Every structure is written in structure tokens, then in C-alpha cells.
């Protein structure tokens, strides 16, 4: 059975190009992609995940506000009953050029399972997701 993922760009971020590419790449890899598009609130991610009984939420953030926008997402997922859902984040997550291991650490502490630096090819996320879902 095909696994369902929620794909979207969080916050006030309107970068749509990568979103359209990820949509196609994950779809081609056999996932059932629910693409909620750009400028999504945490609630929109969570509602979409509940409605579709999703296996993972893949959050993009390209505009540097990712740290503020993603804070509390894991907690809200748990409150909403999405206990074991996989949370991935990727893009230009923070403002400015920062040490990547620091950024990764902060996002992992916020409850993200996987965190990706800028310019990561979709294939890497797909491989990780298949792995994490035991496919």
C-alpha cells in the first residue's frame, strides 16, 4: 500500500518552485503526495495529516524564518494524536549562513526526525523516507 505524505511550505513563505519539484519527485517515487502548497500554517499541515492518515509531514522553508515557524509543530502533532508521525524539514531553514550541525541540532531538539540543508537533492529525502518507513 502506498504511503501518504503531506508536503508544504510553512509560514509566510511563498517559494513554489521547489514545492512543485518535490511533489513530482515523491509522486514518481510511489508516494501518495498531499501537496498543501506554499504559505501553510502548522494547523494546515496537521489537519491535512489527520484527514489523510498521513505517514509523514515534509516541511519546506526557504525564506529563513523556518526556526520560528516550525517551533512547537511536534507538540501540536502530539496533541492532535499524530504520535508517531515522521517530521522532516529542509530548505534555507535559518537566517544567514550558520554552522549546519548547529542548525540540525536545534531542529532535532524541536522534534524533527530529519533535517536537510539547502540544495539537497529530492532523492536523498526519498531514500531516507523509504528507510524510516521500512519500505
Amino acid at each position: 500500500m502506498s504511503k501518504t505524505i503531506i508536503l508544504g511550505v510553512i509560514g509566510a513563505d511563498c517559494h513554489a518552485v521547489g514545492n512543485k519539484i518535490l511533489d513530482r519527485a515523491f509522486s514518481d517515487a510511489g508516494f501518495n503526495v498531499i501537496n498543501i502548497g506554499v504559505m501553510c500554517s502548522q494547523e494546515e499541515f496537521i489537519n491535512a495529516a489527520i484527514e489523510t492518515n498521513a505517514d509523514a509531514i515534509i516541511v519546506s522553508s526557504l525564506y529563513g524564518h523556518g526556526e520560528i515557524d516550525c517551533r512547537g509543530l511536534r507538540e501540536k502533532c502530539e496533541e492532535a494524536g499524530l504520535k508517531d508521525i515522521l517530521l522532516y524539514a529542509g530548505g534555507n531553514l535559518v537566517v544567514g549562513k550558520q554552522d549546519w550541525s548547529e542548525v540540525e541540532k536545534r531542529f532535532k531538539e524541536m522534534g524533527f526526525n530529519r533535517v536537510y540543508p539547502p540544495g539537497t537533492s529530492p532523492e536523498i529525502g526519498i531514500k531516507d523516507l523509504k528507510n524510516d518507513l521500512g519500505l
Partner: protein
Amino acid sequence: MELKNKKWSQEQFFKVREEILNHWPTGKDVNLEDAAEYLKKVPEHKSFPAKLKKAKEEGITLAQPRAGVALVEDHINLLTYLQNEGEADLLPSTIDSYTRQNRYNECEVGLEESRKAGRSMLNGFPAVNHGVEGCRRVFEAVNLPLQARHGTPDARLLSEIIHASGWTSNEGGGISYNIPYAKSVSLEKTILDWQYCDRLAGLYEEMGISLNREPFGPLTGTLVPPSVSNAVAIIEGLLAAEQGVRNLTLGYGQCGNLVQDVAAMRALEEQANEYFKMYGYDVYLTTVFHQWMGGFPQDESKAFGVISWGSATAALAGATKVIVKTPHEAVGIPTKEANAAGIKATKQTLNLLRGQRLPMSKELEEEIKLIKAETKCILDKVFEVGNGDLAVGAVKAFELGILDIPFAPSKYNAGKILPARDNNGAVRILEFGNIPFTKEIKDFHRSLLEARAKVENREVGFQMVVDDIYAVGKGFLVGRPNL
């Protein structure tokens, strides 16, 4: 209010204005008479229209960075650094993304967090929250013309505040700051809201104060065919002129093929002037060229290559100014040093090329002709579906996919056209959706893409598009299958 391409009456304007200035507490500090007096004292070297005019007359290209951080003091430090160390010719204030969504409360959070964290937690300068007082502090601290650069569908309060603060240019437009920047804001609303911003600039113009307006040329910045962005630029130019704007900068984002890029810039300037003349507007037109807006290589040396090539194209195209990228582009918002480095590489290239232009050739002439013909196809249809009203026509044209911007997030965009590069790297169209090109033009695009497909030994298709988007990050313009 009914949308029409007609200059707002004073009554209309001031009625809306009253409401706008109450959107956030800083609005109450905006006083038109006081602002006019302040603006009249702006010296020539800090005036956008004056500096652009001088550059155009001398045939030189000015360099302008993007830059903005949360706090006033930090923002001043950043801008003065770019002015003194970076040797920028024009200064920006890039506005943060919350302000762009009018989410001023969230800006407050961002400001608070920035103070605590000791680094900017906002991706730009929240001009509305800082108000006239903060924005004037920035203006007074620098020695160059200052412009707001953002991506704000409803920039009415922002525009009031920045102009009242001596910022003599405002980027944006009802289409260009909606379709690429919003998901579900109606075009009627954003065109009306930008008529307000244009009318505001027009009012100052009537008071003898010249302000520059700049529609955002590159749109989504990703494989946008020149005729599509030129059509939008000319529409926004005409809409602004109707509201009394007299100083306009129309823009275009680098696609990467030299002949196409130069042709696009020349077609834009010539055709826009033709339309202004046709409709009886007296506009002083300058042009802006945006360095590569797509994916950047991670490696900083390679990024310098991309930046310099954009600068060279801007110079050879005779752009009045160029918007500069930085060697940190691939990793996010740059440090001030990286930002200055981008400007310096740009200025060096511009200076070396000062006075040089791409000479007219058969290829350039034909590309200019093609872009103008395509743009006219679109504009004719926009006027037609609007029954002669450009504002109404623009809204309908997006509904019908006559205007259609690749990779835009807005649900008001049809999203049916699909662009791809031809074998020389020029952006062509693979699927036309409802773009009203003639059969001859469509066949020409198709033949160019078939020629590429043959070289690459594959079919014309979506994978070409994906490959083209990833290509520059990998160092190439055309996404060949073996990269």
C-alpha cells in the same frame, strides 16, 4: 470599489487612506504635508529618480544589493557597510516576510526575539513596525537613495510610511507582488491596493516631488519567458502611469542566454515607451536587470561566476541598474561581507564593460522582434477581454490563462504553461496553456525545443523542465540528461 484602470479621485483616495493609516499604530504618524516637506529636502544624490536619470544619461549601470535585518541600528550598520565597503550605488531595504503578509504582530515577536538572540530573526526590515521615525533614522544615516523592496500584496501602509521617510522608490505591483508572492489573494484586490500605492506616488508627483516606482520584473524568477514578464511589466507600468506615476523602472530577470536577455531588455524598454506614448502618458523610463534568480551553486567561487555573468549581461544590455546576488545565495541570507563581495564583483564587471553594448546582429534583431510580437499577442488579448480596460483585462486574463506565470504559488494563476530551454539556453515554451500566441510563434518554439531534444536524444517533456531548474545549481544553464 470597482476595479477600473482610472485615476482615483482625491475623495476615493483619502477615504481609503483614513482606514489604512489605522491598520497599525505607526500609521498615525504619517502626515502628508510633513512628508512632502521632508521629501522636498531630499538632496539629489539621495533621490532615486535623480540618480537613475544621471546614470541613464551617462550610459552607465548602477548596482543595487538586497538587504534587510530586523533592528534599526543593525539595519543602518548593514546599509552603511554596503554603501562604504560594498560600493553600492543604490540602497535597498528588503522588507521581512511577515510585513509582506501584514502580520505586524508577528513582526513584534520577531523584533523581540532578534533583540534577545542578538541576531536577526526576521528575514528583512519591518518598516511598518519601525514607523516613520525608524525609517527616517535609516534614511538619514545613509548617503544614497533608498528603496523598499519586498513582495507585499497589500503595501498601502508600508508605502505611506516609507515615502514619508524619504525613501524615494518603492518596488512592487498589483500583479508582480501577488501572483509570485501570495497563494490566495485576489488580483482585483491587489491591483486596487497597488493603484493606491501608485496614486500615493502620483500625489507626491503633483506636489512637485519625484518618486520612482518599480514593478517587480522577474516574477517567479524561474524560467519565465521574456514576453510573459515583459507583458506584466508593461501592464503594471501603464496602471501606475494612469495613477500619476511619472518615474518608472521596468525590470527583467536574467534567463541566461545573452542574446535573449539583451533582446528582452531592449524589447521591454522600446515597447513600454511605445505603449506609454500610445496611451498618452509622460513617463521617464529606466530599466533594471536582475542577476540570476534561480538556484545558485553552493561554492562561492562559482557563485561569483554567476554574479559576474549577470553583471556583464546587464552592462551589455544597457540596463540602468542591476540587482545584485551574493556568493551566499545558495545557503540563504548573506552576511554583510558576502553581500558587499557580490556588489564589488558586480561593480568591477560593470566598470570594465562601461560603454560596451552587445552590437545589433541578425540574431538579436530577430529575438527582439519575436519578444515584441509575443508581448503584443498577450497585451492585445488582455485589452480585448477587459473591453479596453487594462485593470479589468489583467484580472480576466489571469482567469483565462492568457497571462500565466510559470511556477507561481497563486491559485489565481492558471499554471498551465510550461517553459524549457532551447539548445542555446534561451527560455522557450513547451506547453502554451492559453497564452494567445500565433500558430507561427508556437511552431517556432516547438521547433527549437525539438532541436534540443534531438541533441539530447530524448523526447521534449517535463523532465527537461526539472533538469533546467536544477542545472545552474550544478553549474550549467541547460539541464542536459547526463549532468
